[in-house]
């Protein structure tokens, strides 16, 4: 593909790796800079930007910024909120969306094709176009909780979880995957007397490891990175996720060391998760591409 004017294969190889490495630096240096800067006092952080030191953990290295960041904002609480909202949404979402996908592929019911068309149509509705009317809607929805009946979902976990459990892409991905499972298997289990729930739970789901991983990763990324919705529905910091908590660090005289520390705290879990499961991550993104 990328022809060079030389016939020397070693030289060509070296040039190829150099190009690849230079591009890699573009992607890696800002993230590296963030992590290294989180370890430095502000003065040094600013001075280091003019040299390669910006990307190296040298000089006055400490975790002081982390300590200060934790003092400035209830980061632990924000983190727990994020993990709770993301975790619950992902688990319930996988259940609900795989059940819907199962129903669309293996069961035959009236209205199925219309329902599936509606689900496909939602794929071209960006969340941003429904966020404003939904804000009004959730502010008026009823709720029956442990402490009785109430109106309005603002400032709660449920307002961050329930609207995002079901989504068109996840249902679609499950349906695509289920289509390729051998139909004979489902028939055989029905003949042996399995109920539909047993077919779903004991036969189909155990065969769906790859698509469950894919859907979980996509949903996790989408939920953990939610921003527009939580800034509108969590005025009380008690329910805020980590990204909204960042607003503590928005002031004009930004303490950049602390900001970098907080950014690192937010990023490291996802990055670690990604590096541990790279193949699954990349496979999940790739699978969104086969729908064309």
């Amino acid at each position: 593909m990328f022809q060079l004017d030389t016939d020397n294969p070693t030289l060509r190889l070296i040039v190829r790796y150099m190009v690849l490495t230079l591009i890699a630096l573009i992607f890696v240096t800002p993230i590296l800079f963030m992590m290294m800067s989180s370890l430095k006092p502000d003065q040094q952080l600013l001075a280091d930007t003019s040299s390669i030191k910006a990307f190296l953990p040298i000089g006055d290295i400490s975790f002081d910024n982390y300590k200060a960041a934790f003092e400035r904002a209830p980061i632990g609480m924000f983190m727990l909120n994020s993990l709770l909202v993301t975790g619950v949404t992902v688990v319930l979402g996988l259940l609900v969306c795989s059940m819907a996908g199962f129903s669309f592929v293996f069961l035959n019911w009236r209205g199925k094709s219309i329902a599936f068309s509606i689900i496909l149509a939602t794929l071209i509705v960006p969340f941003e176009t429904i966020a404003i009317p939904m804000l009004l809607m959730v502010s008026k929805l009823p709720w029956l909780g442990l402490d009785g009946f109430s109106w309005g979902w603002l400032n709660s976990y449920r307002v961050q979880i329930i609207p995002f459990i079901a989504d068109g892409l996840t249902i679609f991905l499950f349906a695509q995957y289920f289509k390729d499972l051998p139909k004979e298997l489902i028939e055989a289990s029905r003949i042996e007397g399995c109920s539909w729930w047993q077919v779903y739970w004991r036969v189909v789901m155990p065969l769906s490891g790859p698509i469950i991983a894919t859907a979980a990763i996509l949903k996790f990324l989408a939920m953990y990175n939610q921003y527009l919705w939580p800034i509108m529905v969590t005025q009380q910091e008690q329910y805020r996720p980590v990204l909204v908590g960042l607003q503590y660090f928005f002031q004009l005289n930004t303490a950049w060391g602390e900001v970098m520390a907080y950014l690192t705290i937010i990023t490291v879990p996802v990055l670690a998760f990604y590096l541990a499961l790279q193949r699954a991550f990349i496979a999940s993104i790739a699978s969104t591409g086969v729908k064309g």
Partner: protein
Amino acid sequence: MKKNSILTRHNTTGWLFASPGFGLMLLFIVIPFILAIAFSLTNQRLMSPNAAEFVGLENYTNMLDVGILVVDPEIDASGNILVDKNGDNKYPRLRKFTRNNPDYPNVQGMKEWFSFSWGEQKVAIMASDLVFMKALVNTLTFVAFVAPIQGALALILALLINQPLRGIQIFRSIYFMPVVVSIVVVSLLWRFIYDGQNGLLNSVLNTLTFGHFKAVDWLGNQDTALGSIMAMSIWQAVGFHMIIWLSGLQTISPTLYEAAKIEGASPWQTFRYVTWPGLRNTAVLVVIVITMQAFSLFAQIDVMTSGGPLDSTQTIVYQAVERGYGKQDISGGSAMSVVLFLLVLSISLLQRYLTREKN
């Protein structure tokens, strides 16, 4: 006869399995979508003691109305055109026409969007919601630049990492890394990188040019702010589309490449006649996905510029949120959301049409 014996009717079971997911989607996607259209025709507010009233298309006209005002230059008593210090014609202030002037009902309350001269006259394009007009233009500009550039760069990266080289997965993983970092984190990080005084980008450019580079306040300058946000957005998301291109590349049969090689095709010919035709469907998908993401531009603006400087980075979603949430004007925000949806819809239909299978 039915194709498949298990596909007899199972209305109850089918509904039981589908209803949790489908019901939630109706409640939280379909209904809000219908409400967006409904609210946009009323004066609905977030908290209001009064019931909302139907107002027709008023929200849309308030937002999208433009008028043209042709202004004659000012003349002195003897009929000569007055000129200012630079030798340009002097014109009366537009305020005279837009404020309480019954002779010009079509531009009442409007503000000047831009103007140009036409002979001796000045033609001013007036807009009733100037900020929204800027947001609309900025959003379209953002899409017009980001969609092709990000799509093309992602394809180049995909071709690079599709080479059979040892350790190529490491590069693939690195190029993809920014995708898993939240755009909010990225935006705040790049606010420092773009900083006018101590910013990393200025320092790096300064070092690379041996001190010849004059520091730029990338986000504080209305000529560079939107471009800077574009560059950062591409940096963050390009790895995502690289993977989609890559999965498209890997569906192309290796025998086609072998055939091209035997025929003695140049690398460009191989790309043009083997690779690219095999990527048609992928291309439609990549462009539609990038376009949808680009139209939804919000977090970057909220974290980096709040729409400034001088509204040069206002976007439709940022305006919709400022209206609907900030000013609690649900109807105005909904109208903007509907305009955004129509844009997304028409552009995806256009793209599908342009990239349709040609027989």
